[in-house]
Each structure stands twice: as C-alpha cells, then as structure tokens.
C-alpha cells in the first residue's frame, strides 16, 4: 500500500510535467490545427542555454528564468521563421514543417555544438525527500505539482478573463469566424506560440533539473510525451491535455511498478497498447472536441 501511494505521488509529479508539455501542444493545435512535433526543441534549445549558464557558474535561480525566456523566444522564432510561411497550407504541410523544424534544430546542435551528451549540475534538493508517515515524498515532486497547479490556474485566468484569452478561445473554436469578428490573427498566433513557449519553458525547467544533461536529440522524449498526452486528453482540448498528462504520468509509474517482472521491460509498450485501446473506445480522446481534426 505504501509503495502504491508512493508511486501515485511520483506519477502525479511526472504527470505534471507532461501536463505542461501537453498544454503547450494543445494551445498551438487549437489555434493552427498544427500538431507541433517541434515542441520538444524548445527544451533542446533551453537545455543548451542552461548548460552554458550552469557550467559557467550561474546558479539555478538565474538559470530558471533564462530557460523560460529562451523557450519563449525560441517558440516565437520558430513561428516567425517556419510556421508563418505555411499558415495557409494544409494540416499535412504544417505537420511536415514541424518535423522539419525538429530535424533542423537537432542538426544545428549536432553540427555546430557537439554530438556528445553535455552534463550540467542538478540542483542539490532534487532528490531530497520528506516523510509523511511511512511515505518518503520527493521535494521535487511536491514543487512540480504545486508549480503546475499554479501555472494551470494562471493559464485558466489568462484564457477566461483576458481579451487575449477570449481571442485565443474564439480562434480555437472557429478561426475564420473569429477573424471576421475582428480578432487579429497575427497577435493570436504569436500569443499562442509565446504561451506554448512559456509552458514548455516551465516544463523544461523541471525536465532539465531531473535530467542534468542535454544533447541534440534531447527534445524527442518531451515532445513525444507532450503529443501523446495531448492525444490522450483529446486533441484541441486544453483541459483534456492536462488530464492526458496526468493520466500518462500515472500510467507510466504505476504500470512499471505493478507489471510482473517478466514483462516489466515492456512498460512503454503496455502504455501504448492502453492508449490504442482508449482510442478504440474514445477515438477523440478523453475529452472530445468537435472541431478537432485528427492527423
């Protein structure tokens, strides 16, 4: 029982990071119908920025805002350089463009930085724990869950209570009509990419704190987790993305601990099989969005 509770807490911690990543994916999909496979590159770029800063003696306190700022800036640059050129194109073209961005960013670091893993120090408290009865809870999980909840509350406020949020939601519901109603498409799209970058930046902070390294392909894993979580939750649904993140995180941790030893190495495969099952019964994900278009 103790181990199960421990795993649930760990799963929520992991799921929180996935939720932030998925929310970033969902924001872009809602506005552009773009399933952004370049989303993980925001963490790749911020990872290298963090590496340079941390190995130069900069503390994590300063590295945290740096990671977030670099992530937002990278997101905006990618939008300007790549996606703004294909805005009117088909979903498939957008999808291919996002793959292209993913490979180009990876190749840039491979060619001009290094093929090697680049290490940097993790914050000292990442693995520290505190006790609740027989449970030993990581401070890291606690902080991640709290920050995620605060971030989600702030994003909810932004989306529900501000003109930008209204524009974003309107654009997500029906972009053409929103534009006819006077919504500035450039501002909405750039705002969406900035918000997506902010969410990836916050997720990236925790991802990088845990990883303690970066490499040219560092963005693949967070990208896959974010996209998967968004799909589980229901592509196009912001609430679904958050739900999908938590479900994915919990599934990974709980399954790894509960599966018999003989098939424990297939945990990832079992997770994918369960996702496939989910799509058989709920093709639109956990929360179906009428206008979402599956790609």
């Amino acid at each position, binding site marked *: 029982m103790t181990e199960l509770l421990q795993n649930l807490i760990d799963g929520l911690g992991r799921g929180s990071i996935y939720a932030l990543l998925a929310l970033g994916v969902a924001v872009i999909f809602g506005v552009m119908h773009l399933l952004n496979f370049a989303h993980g590159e925001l963490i790749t770029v911020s990872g290298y920025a963090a590496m340079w800063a941390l190995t130069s003696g900069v503390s994590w306190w300063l590295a945290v805002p740096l990671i977030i700022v670099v992530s937002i800036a990278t997101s905006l640059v990618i939008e300007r350089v790549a996606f703004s050129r294909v805005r009117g194109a088909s979903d498939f073209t957008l999808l291919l463009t996002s793959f292209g961005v993913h490979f180009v960013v990876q190749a840039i670091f491979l060619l001009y930085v290094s093929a090697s893993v680049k*290490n940097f120090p993790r914050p000292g408290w990442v693995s520290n724990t505190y006790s609740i009865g027989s449970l030993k809870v990581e401070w890291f999980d606690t902080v991640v869950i709290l920050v995620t909840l605060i971030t989600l509350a702030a994003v909810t406020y932004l989306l529900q209570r501000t003109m930008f949020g209204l524009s974003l939601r309107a654009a997500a519901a029906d972009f053409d009509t929103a534009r006819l109603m006077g919504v500035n498409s450039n501002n909405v799209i750039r705002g969406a990419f900035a918000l997506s970058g902010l969410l990836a930046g916050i997720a990236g902070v925790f991802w990088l704190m845990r990883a303690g390294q970066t490499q040219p392909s560092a963005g693949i894993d967070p990208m896959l987790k974010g996209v998967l979580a968004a799909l589980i939750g229901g592509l196009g649904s912001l609430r679904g993305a958050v739900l999908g993140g938590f479900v994915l995180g919990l599934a990974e941790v709980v399954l790894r601990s509960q599966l018999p030893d003989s098939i424990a190495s297939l945990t990832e495969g079992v997770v994918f099989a369960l996702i496939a099952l989910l799509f058989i019964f709920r093709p639109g994900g956990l929360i179906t969005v009428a206008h979402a278009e599956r790609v």
Partner: protein
Amino acid sequence: MEKVRDEIDKRVLIVNRSLPNNATWARDHRANGTHNQGDMFMGSHRDSRTRFRIFALMFSIALIAAACGSDAAETGGGESSGGGGGDGAGLDIDAILAADLDNCEEAPTGDPIRVGMAMDFSDVVGFVDIPGSQLNPFVAEKINCTGGINGQPVEVRVAEVGDDAALAAQDLLDWGAHFLVGPPFADFALPILQTTDGEVPMFVAASTEPTLADAEINSFLVTFDDFGMAEAAAQWAWDEGITRAIVFTEGEGIPYTGVNPDAFMAKFTELGGEVVSVQTYVWAADTDFSAQVNEIAGLSENNEIVFSAALAFQVTALRGQLEGQGLDGLTYIGTDAMDATGIQVEDNNEGIAHTPHTSISAGDRIDTLLADYEAANGEALESRSFMALYVDSMFLGIQGILDCGCTDGPGIGEAVANISGFQGLSGEITYAGTNGIPNKDVPINRIVDGEDVLVSTISG
C-alpha cells in the same frame, strides 16, 4: 556463461536507431499573401512560377549537398622521415607518437597504405566517431612525418555513413582502402560487412558488440566485448566483498543494454553472489526512476552493488533518488557508456566505478598523443579513452600489412587474425586463437576524491 553467450549468438540482433542522422527540412511551399494582410488562413492560391523557382532552388541545393556529401575528407601522403623496429616489423609506435610535425624527415614516396574510415557522425555515436575520425588523420601525419611505413605513406579517408553505410563503404573500397575502421553499432557495421564481404578487414573501433566480430570475414573488435566488460564488473564487485546485486536492464538479450546485465548476472551468480532485484528502464532516456526506487527501497539491505549499462547522467540521477530514500550504502558500477558520457564531470559521482577502454594516466602514450593533437589543432578532442581504440585500429591494420608483406585484403585479414601480444595504446591485443574479439584486460576505474583513477585490472 557459455549458455548465455550461445543464446545471444542465436538472436538476430537489430539495434534500433532512435534518430535518422541527416537533417532534412522539406519546406514544400509557402502560403501566399503577406503577413499583415490578415488573410494568411484564407489565401491558398499558389503561384506556379514561384513554386517552380523554389523547387529549382531546392533541387540545386540538394545537388550541391549531394556533391559535398560525396567528398570524403582525405589526409595523409607527403611529409617525411623514417620509423622501423619496435612492436612489429617496421612499426615503431613510440617513434611515430614522438614525431615532431614541425621537423619531419623526407616524405615517403612509395605506394600509399590506405586507411578507410566509415564513420557515423550522428548523435548516436558521433561522440566517438567524430573525434576518432579527427585523430587518425593526425596520427597518419605523424607516421608520414617519420618517413612512413617502410617508405610508404599512410593516407586516411573518412566517409560519413549517413543513411547508407554500404555506399560509404563502397566509396572507400573504390578508393582502394586496404582496411576499414567502422562504426560501433550493428545497424551500420553490418551493411559495411556485407559490402566488404570479407575482402577487406574491418576494425569496429569503439564497439563491444560480440556479434560484430568474426575473423572468418575479417571483422575484428579492438576492445573487450560486452561479456568481458560485464564479467569484469561482476568480478570486481565480488572482489570488493559485495555479495548482493541490483541490476538495471532494458530486457534480456537486447544488444548492449540487456546483454551486459545478462552477462553480469550470470557471472555474479556463478561467483556465488545473489541478484536481489532486476529493474527495467529506458536506456539513454529515463532520468526519473521513482517506480524502481520505490521497489528497491522495500528490499535493499543498503549494501548492494548496482550494475547497469546506463549512461552517466542516468546513473547519477538514479543514485540521487536512491540516496533520497536513505539508501546511501550502495556501490555503483557501469560499463564503457559511463565513460563515454562523462561520468568524470558529473555531480554526485564520487565512488562510482566503471570499465573504460583505456585508463589514461598523465604522460602515458595516449595522454601524450591527445595533448599533441590539442597543441597542433588548438582544441582538445571530445572523447579521450575511446580514442586509443581508433588509433589502435589503424596500427593493427598496418601491422597486418607488415606481417603478411602484402596489400590484398584477405592476406591482411589473415595476418591480423594471427596477431599476438600487440602493444597498442589501449593495451595488449591478441587475436590469435580468437574469433576477432581480442583478449584484453579490463580496467576498472573509480571516482576517488573527484579523480577518475584506476583501481583494479581484471584479466581478460
């Protein structure tokens, strides 16, 4: 042990690459209209002329890229001076390494000895193949600076395998390579071996993959294999008085990430030890081991050896989480992957042991060579202990040529297969009586007071 080896040999080994290694970005067409017209979501008429221009431009770029891609870096030839004596007829490694490139002897003028390097520059193994392909041309310069090999210059050509290892190998064969130095993983090494078809020897420089070695087809490892490495780790743990083990694996029989743990467990239990927990993880990806740590916390006696083939940052992440659960009495040992990914510079690395390919000490041959390279090129190579394997690959091929007195591939291969007691930069290498996996001692290094030091050597 033999049972495990046989089982592995029976398997068809496929190493999945996580990534393609040539970045391509197909930007198939632009949306028309300018950004501030406000209709970028509506306008989709394509200007066929613009599309044609873009297509023509991209086609031209592709042609240029293809042309550049077929150009292989080539060095060698020229320079001057004599060698002779030492480790084999005409190959004096110490004299070669001592060559002063600013003060060379007369340039060798004989037919060149051609060394082909089919290298993988992707992020999967580029961390060793890139510096390896930088160092060997430098060593060739040194050889030529000492007058070459019996008056023959050494030329090195590097061909990146890209997405087509067979094509890269064919390029090198067409050039006239006398032997090849190949990439470490089977997905590229096997197509190269199919291309060479045993006609030219290949040294799989940085590989510990046992299935890649086969003296019958002139394919040779330059270092110990996974079994040698993992068994040495088990022996060291046992010698340290540790009788319980926790092992992390990707799954039984999986090349490298599963084979090393398999071999460790077989040897450790053979010695009398007990494997108390086998945990799974995703190699090169997982840094959150919460589920595994929770399980280990329930069964550990805080005195086990923790073995895995994980990367350095994974081992330190795992260690941090285990220590967070109060398990601070565990001992950690890993494979050459730890060295490859910088265990020396990780935080929280004190006491962690690993099996490097060369335990470098200040002023030894490889240390001096790497310092020479840095002085000559203005920057250090990114990898250190793996570099001796690349240089040894070249020296072993040359030794084969000298031993057989021939330049035909099968003849060189046969001579290499009979090499015994070769004093390479990475240690003593013997192929005679093996199937291409050299008998080599396995160094055990450990981080002690922040320094990566040799603490034991397990006989091969």
